[in-house]
């Protein structure tokens, strides 16, 4: 299995180019929003999972899918897509996927911090 980078470099590059001349770095803004908002939504997903609330699990997974898709976090996107799909069908047998989500998020977070530090 080839290991893919946590964030698709092409997507990161296109986000970097969204910064208009003389304006604050848009990539940094987007990645900071991700770091602030995503852990909250992961927590919401987990607490909905503990409450066996499939509808809320689905909503949170859908939102996380959007967040990860937008920054090119393809691995995390794929896990969220699967949780979204299962929860939509009322299937909450997603323990392994939740572990996968934690793992993917940790990788993405580390990569974001690396980018934010190196500019």
């Amino acid at each position, binding site marked *: 299995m080839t290991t893919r980078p946590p964030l698709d470099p092409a997507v990161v590059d296109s986000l970097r180019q969204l910064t208009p001349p003389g304006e604050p770095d848009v990539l940094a803004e987007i990645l900071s929003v991700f770091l602030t908002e995503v852990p909250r939504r992961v927590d919401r997903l987990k607490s909905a999972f503990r409450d066996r609330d499939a509808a809320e699990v689905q909503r949170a997974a859908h939102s996380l899918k959007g967040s990860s898709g*937008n920054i090119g976090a393809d691995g995390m996107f794929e896990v969220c897509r699967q949780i979204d799909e299962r929860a939509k069908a009322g299937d909450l047998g997603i323990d392994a996927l939740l572990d996968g989500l934690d793992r993917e998020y940790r990788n993405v977070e580390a990569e974001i911090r690396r980018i934010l530090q190196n500019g």
Partner: protein
Amino acid sequence: MDSLQVLVADDEPVSRTVVGAMLKKAGFVVHYAHDGEQAWQRLNGPNPPSLALLDWEMPGLQGPEVVERIRGSQSHAPTYLILLTSRDTSADIVSGLRAGADDYVTKPANEDELIARVNVGARVVRLQLALADRVRSLEEALANVKALQTLLPMCAYCKSIRNDQNYWQKVETYFHQHSGVSFSHSYCPSCYERYVLPELEKLESRDQGRGR
């Protein structure tokens, strides 16, 4: 050309920020709404943005519901509405367009496609504004023509016209005010014979009298 104002309504903050940044880079003035209710308030309020990108799945009011409300409100200025959606089956697209959306963009948005579609919307909006302007000036012109078509009271002797304020105006002034027509003063050949020539002859004979 003025920058158009665009509303981005999405409860998902990363997507909202990314889409907003794409629009700003393309020169649009961007406003944000965090859910469907806020989007509806903004679009139904004073000075609404003329273009809106609405996420399909938002808590409370969903994108298509916001679209339906806007299309159902009579007083509303026409707004170009684009749905943002990860649903890309043809059934979803059809139901979004049936609700009254002008277009849809799939998420995550590709920058070039998003901006191209928003530019289509901007073109439509500008065209609508230009047409509305044109209709307004045509209506004004029509109102003036109507005023001219009605029966005008005219003095049988001095030819003055009585206006709506019961005031007698010279024909030239009246028509100038109601139709923008301007008059230049001259004389026709028969009046030249009848009035101008005798006047000239009178002046001439007076000069000759002085000269002697």
